[in-house]
């Protein structure tokens, strides 16, 4: 076991995949000499060469579109989109080509492409650098969408994503890149929990709190704070956003009877709506209260001086927990 940052854990996972499979090839803007703007690919071009770690022209549609061709030819491309807000030029290639190729070719063409996207806010960046576009991709059939929340998961899940024969949109919570944690670099990704499986992070009995990516840490902190007030919160890290492991969430809600979902993305049409609806269908008679969503607002990601108002934080999550428990909260006395 070793203490390492989230970014370093990804780097180590990428290195292992490059080592193990000569068909793995990394592509993206500034990922070579610079090692990526977050240094996730640091040193990889030096060790694996310019043909396996490729500095591409500034053309996102070009990056993903050529990855499609490489996959056709048996490669396993891992592409980096520099920031969440710059994936949109590639959106057409991702949703119309990457996602549908296997289906269109009646299973003959595999698209084992991993699309790495640093996502989310809280780092004081200008616009287009803090978005949470996961719902667009989770809504597209044919794509798997995952997001690790700990360095260990980053290390194993990136290897699992690369090994997966389906395309994977791999969201990296950028404000956690520098967080440290224990990582077992020798862990065999095949024996680790699969990337499609949710994980109970903190056991609890009063409320189920579902989070993913950057907010898992915030949710865990909220659970600790709630415990001080005698409220027992079970925190679930979703890990996979498409498909969602509803069974794990369902088992928890059957136990607690209450559900709070939190994400940075805006509320409407977000993952929270999907979780709330699906869990309501699955365990309506076990619910003691309506599911609660604590999310970003339905606004363009705001400029940095006010982003802290947009992002769910510990207090807003606790307020949501109070709502689910019917305890006094900021909306007490309000109907509808």
């Amino acid at each position: 076991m070793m203490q390492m940052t989230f970014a370093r854990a990804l780097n180590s996972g990428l290195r292992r995949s490059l080592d193990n499979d000569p068909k793995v090839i990394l592509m993206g803007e500034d990922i070579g000499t610079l090692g990526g703007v977050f240094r996730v690919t640091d040193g990889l071009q030096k060790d694996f060469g310019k043909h396996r770690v490729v500095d591409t022209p500034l053309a996102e549609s070009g990056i993903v579109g050529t990855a499609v061709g490489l996959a056709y030819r048996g490669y396993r491309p891992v592409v980096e989109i520099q920031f969440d807000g710059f994936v949109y030029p590639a959106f057409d290639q991702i949703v119309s080509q990457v996602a549908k190729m296997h289906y269109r070719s009646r299973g003959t063409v595999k698209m084992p492409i991993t699309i790495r996207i640093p996502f989310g806010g809280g780092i004081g960046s200008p616009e287009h650098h803090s978005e949470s576009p996961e719902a667009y991709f989770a809504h597209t059939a044919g794509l798997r969408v995952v997001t690790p929340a700990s360095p260990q998961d980053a290390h194993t899940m990136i290897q699992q994503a690369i090994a997966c024969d389906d395309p994977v949109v791999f969201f990296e919570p950028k404000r956690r890149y520098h967080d440290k944690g224990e990582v077992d670099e020798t862990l065999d990704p095949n024996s680790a929990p699969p990337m499609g499986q949710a994980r109970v992070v903190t056991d609890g009995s009063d409320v189920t709190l579902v989070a993913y990516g950057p907010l898992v840490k915030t949710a865990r902190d909220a659970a600790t704070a709630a415990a001080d007030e005698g409220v027992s919160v079970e925190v679930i890290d979703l890990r996979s956003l498409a498909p969602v492991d509803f069974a794990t969430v369902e088992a928890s809600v059957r136990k607690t009877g209450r559900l709070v979902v939190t994400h940075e993305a805006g509320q409407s049409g977000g993952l929270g709506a999907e979780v709330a609806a699906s869990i309501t269908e699955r365990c309506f008679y076990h619910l003691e209260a309506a599911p609660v969503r604590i999310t970003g607002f339905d606004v363009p990601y705001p400029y940095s001086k006010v982003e802290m108002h947009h992002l769910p934080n510990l207090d807003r999550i606790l307020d949501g927990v109070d709502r689910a428990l019917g305890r006094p909260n900021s909306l007490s006395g309000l109907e509808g």
Partner: protein
Amino acid sequence: MVQLITPAGERVSHPEYDPWVKDVSDEQLCSLYEDLVVIRRIDKEATALQRQGELGLWPPLLGQEASQVGSVRALRDDDFIFPSYRENGVAYCRGVDVKDILRVWRGAASGGWDPYKFNLAIPQIVIGAQTLHATGYAMGIQNDGADSAAIVYFGDGATSEGDVSEAMVFAASYQVPLVFFCQNNHWAISEPVRVQSHTQLVERGTGFGIPSMRIDGNDVLAVMAATRVALDRARRGGGPTFIEAVTYRMGPHTTADDPTRYRDPNELEDWAAKDPIGRVHALLDRKGLFTEEFETSVRTKADAVARDLRAGCVGMPDPEPLDVFKHVYSTPNSWLDRQQDHYSRYLASFGDPEAAEQEEGAR
């Protein structure tokens, strides 16, 4: 490559381009010099403000002053500009209050000025997107039968983006009054220009049937002459022009970047010798125009602008919490109104709003 002032400050003649700047008087030359110096000063001050935590980020334009000044000073007030994030020198020349230039970089707003007041669009961060906007705007000019033009600024890296190719297709097909102004500063963050193109960038334009020029982007007169040629063509119905201004980004890509990881220091040295300010200084010297009095007046001006910049930046009030919800739609939206109402109640639930605000830590 078109050049009218050598790095040593010699005025060289060019039969084709000389006529386009023959009206530039000594006085105007001095004023161009002042622009260059003031812009460099703005850049330096803003970089310092970022280092002091007053700005979230700053994209320096050190070395690119002549490309920006020469081109923007060739425009008329009714010509419309579509900039990227680096055209802060253009914004200054266009009359934008220096404090408003900083607004976006301080994180206090998404756009710092009214585009229609200056005929200057808000900065674009998505690489290349503005080239299509400029093309559409120029189509509008054409439809209106006006004789103004549009100009769009973008980098060498941007030429790889699909949007830029599509913009050139549209602009050439409809022969719109537009100047594609590419500042080839040799780097797209860490990627040298050869990653973007196997040929000289100027050939991009030619391939789309757009008349193209490759000019010394560190030479303020050459830039001005070329931009005037392009604008004249646009106004006379001759369609778009592509200008590759060959310049160099002497600083980091942004204040978050570390060029020592990818750039040979010798390269920087070579380009420092071609500095856009040094050569105008030398030219003015040769002409006997660089008097002590002139030097003092330029320095006084730069000092004053830097002072305004600093004062405007540190004195800028923070936005209000509920500003988050402003301007998402131009008409009320019930979903958002509900979220705003809930968030107001949440803030109020802390009692003292000031204290509540301080407690809001997103991390």
